[in-house]
Each structure stands twice: as structure tokens, then as C-alpha cells.
């Protein structure tokens, strides 16, 4: 867990979430999550029928990868809230970097919490996820 006396507003934490995203990792996520939408794993359907240039990652895979960065930063069981918007698609071959920025330290329901702004960008510096989170911190 983050400690109140070790953090301040404006602090950031960044991590590379995935380098050169493989189609197989998207398949792995489909299997684990149960979302078998062929748009994520079936290149033939996605290019020839749906009209996309290739399969693309589940939004929830990007959110999950970003969540890994987030829990590595705030600790296990500390999250109160985690929400995102999917702002751009994530394609095989993408390299994603996640960033959390402390925007407020405050009290909520008797806990000290930190509000974080979240952004995950691809190798072209385009945001694929923007969002926010709230986590309990140690006083």
C-alpha cells in the first residue's frame, strides 16, 4: 500500500504494460475472460467481414494490463474504484505504457485515499485508455 508520508500530489508511476502485443496474448485473454468475439481472434472474419485492418485487443485486455500497473503501484486489495474510457483501439504489435498520476489525497469513509488519473498510450503516444482510480493508502 502507498504510504501517506511518501507520496504527494503530482507523483507519477509508469510501467510498460506490453511490448509488441501478440495475437496469442489476445487469444489468452479471450480464453480467460470468456469473451470470444471473433473481432479479437479471427483475422479472416475481422478483415473480410467486419472491415477492420486486423484483429484488435479487447478493451478489457487493455484495462486489465493497465490494472496490473495500477495494483503494482497501490498494492493488493487497496483499490476502491477503477474506471476507464477506451479512446483508441489496440492492435497486435502495439507497445503500451501505462501511467498513474496522483491528483488528490483525501479522506473517504474514514480511510485516507488517493485519487489517480490514468492514461495508457501506445508507441505513437496516442492514448488508448484514459481513466481514474481511487485507492486506500496507509497513514
Amino acid at each position, binding site marked *: 500500500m502507498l504510504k501517506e508520508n511518501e507520496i504527494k500530489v503530482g507523483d507519477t508511476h509508469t510501467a510498460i504494460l506490453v511490448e509488441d502485443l501478440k495475437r496469442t496474448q489476445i487469444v489468452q485473454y479471450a480464453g480467460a475472460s470468456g469473451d470470444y468475439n471473433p473481432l479479437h481472434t479471427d483475422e479472416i472474419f475481422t478483415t473480410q467481414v467486419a472491415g477492420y485492418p486486423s484483429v484488435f485487443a479487447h478493451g*478489457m485486455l487493455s484495462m486489465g494490463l493497465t490494472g496490473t500497473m495500477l495494483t503494482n503501484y497501490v498494492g493488493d486489495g487497496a483499490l476502491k474504484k477503477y474506471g476507464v474510457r477506451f479512446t483508441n483501439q489496440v492492435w497486435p504489435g502495439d507497445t503500451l505504457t501505462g501511467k498513474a498520476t496522483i491528483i488528490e489525497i483525501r479522506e473517504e469513509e474514514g480511510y485516507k485515499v488517493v485519487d489517480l488519473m490514468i492514461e495508457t498510450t501506445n508507441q505513437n503516444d496516442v492514448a488508448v485508455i484514459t481513466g481514474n482510480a481511487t485507492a486506500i493508502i496507509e497513514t
Partner: protein
Amino acid sequence: MAIEKFLVEASHIMMFARSVGDANPIYHDEDYAKETELGGIIAPPTFAQSSAQFDPDYFLRPKIGGEGWFGSGKEASGAKPSKDKGGDGGGAAMGLHAEQHFEYHLPVKAGDVLTATTKPGNTWEKESKRAGKLKFSESVTEYRNQNGELVITATGVGVQTERAVDS
């Protein structure tokens, strides 16, 4: 939609954590997890999404012996062509995920048995240069554990696009 029995199992958590690149032992090492304050293996923050596995009617899973699957086989799509085709962008017409929000009330642990109930939320429309008219709709899912305690509130926003999104 309602899910009557979402069994939270350690091996499922392990597979899910692997798929999101998470090597944290709290998701796969029982001995390690026991020694932590949480007292056992817990689910990663987006794990509730895999409740789809426990929804008997989930439409994005091929059904055993059921109706045809719309993904490719001999043909590029197993689905019968629809008459009112228009520029619906094939699979895009089913909708893409626009937003997802989770509120965590209590930790979800391996061994928990959850139920989930989903209610529709707001709907709205927006024009977009990249994909034509966008129709947004919200759904709110409440996950409760075996003690009836609310553990997670999940709000999803789906969007139906007029055509495939330009990249």
C-alpha cells in the same frame, strides 16, 4: 441478465492474471497469499469481467450443439447475411466497449461464489467522424458473494457504431 453462480476459482484467477501480464503471486501462489493481510488468493481488479464464462446465454461464446457461430470456418463468417445490411460494419454492429467502471466494496477471493444481476442504465447518441452515428448504452452489474454482501459494482458502456471505426 443474471448469473446465478459465478465460482471464483484459483486456477481461473491464475489464467486471467497471466493474460493481463500480471505476475503478482497473490494471484497464483496460495502459500504466499496466505501470509498476506488478505489471507488468500484474490481476484485482480478486472476479473469480474470473466463472469461471462458463467452466463449460460453469453452471446460471444460459441454454443455447444447450438446455432451457428458468426466467426470464420469454411466461409469468412458463419452468420447468414442480413438483409438490412447498410454500412453496419459486420461485427461492429454488435457494439464495442466504450467505458468500464468498477467500484470495489469487498475483496473477491478464491473460493467465493458470486451472483450477478445486471440492469440497463442510461442511453445516449453522438455523431462521430470516425464511425458515423454512435449509440451508447449503459449497464450496471452488481456482484454479491455467498454471504449476500455487495462486492463489486460494475458499470459498462457499450457503443454501436454505424460503420467500422477508422484507425
